[in-house]
């Protein structure tokens, strides 16, 4: 199959994001609408129900580098959250500890990334972790 180059792949993702994803619990968009390189993105996850995250809105920053989608993007929580793969210093996601990043393939997208993180929040081991106060952010 034809290999879609980074920029056209990101345009596809942008258009998909603009239309809205699935049930609306995850979304993303360009941080700067003028960014011709489309590197910096904002992501949002609405915390899954029946967990400590219920009704919380988490924002994240996603950076798609030159090698995207061959290499995974770097992800950082802006909203404070307590999850095993999120650094409590700065909110950075450790790619080694999140399987969607560790096993990244060019078929993975920002949508799959956000959906996977949300699923992690609902995982049995994570759903009841004590959380920082709602609305607090990492000191960046």
């Amino acid at each position, binding site marked *: *199959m*034809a*290999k*879609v*180059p980074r*920029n*056209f792949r990101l*345009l596809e993702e*942008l258009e998909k994001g603009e239309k809205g994803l699935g049930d609306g619990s995850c979304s993303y968009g360009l941080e700067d*609408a*003028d*960014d*011709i390189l*489309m590197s910096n993105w904002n992501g949002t996850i609405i915390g899954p129900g029946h967990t400590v995250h219920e009704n919380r809105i988490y924002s994240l920053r996603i950076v798609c580098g030159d090698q995207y989608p061959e290499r995974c993007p770097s992800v950082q929580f802006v909203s404070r959250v307590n999850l095993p793969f999120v650094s409590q210093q700065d909110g950075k996601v450790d790619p080694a500890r999140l399987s969607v990043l560790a096993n990244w393939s060019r078929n993975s997208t920002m949508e799959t990334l956000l959906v996977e993180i949300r699923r992690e929040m609902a995982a049995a081991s994570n759903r009841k972790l004590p959380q920082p106060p709602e609305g607090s952010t990492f000191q960046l």
Partner: protein
Amino acid sequence: MALPKRIIKETERLVADPAPGITAAPHDDNLRYFDVTIQGPDGSPFQQGIFKLELFLPEEYPMAPPKVRFLTKIYHPNIDKLGRICLDILKDKWSPALQIRTVLLSIQALLSAPNPDDPLAPDVAKHYKENEKDAQRVSPRVDAAVRVRMRPSGADDRSEFSLHLFIETRHLVC
């Protein structure tokens, strides 16, 4: 999968016998992905500008149109801030008889004939409609960073077919 014969042929001709004012070269590691430059047409507000674009031939090409985007910022009512182009032949008016070459010529022609009635960039379009002269005055300023000296283009145009198609179907749909 092997590159279809048609793409190989088109590439060969693009490289060996480029259309005046247009270059297109495939990436070494992705032969469906092209670096493109288009010279602003003489007599247009973009005269003397050289614009960089990228073009990708999706798997379904030529049944589906190529994907094209400006990389150079440009002040034009049918081109948005991310360089996406509003041109009917890149969308529902695509014909598999069109080629990379004819698409690029049509984009070059779009630079000569902006269509403010069907904008991708509403603010620019408004500017064009209210005061075309002033909008055109702005264009070169925005593009000044990439302006370089160049020869005037003047050779004959063998892509009449596409241009006819282009002119015929100029009512853009976005």
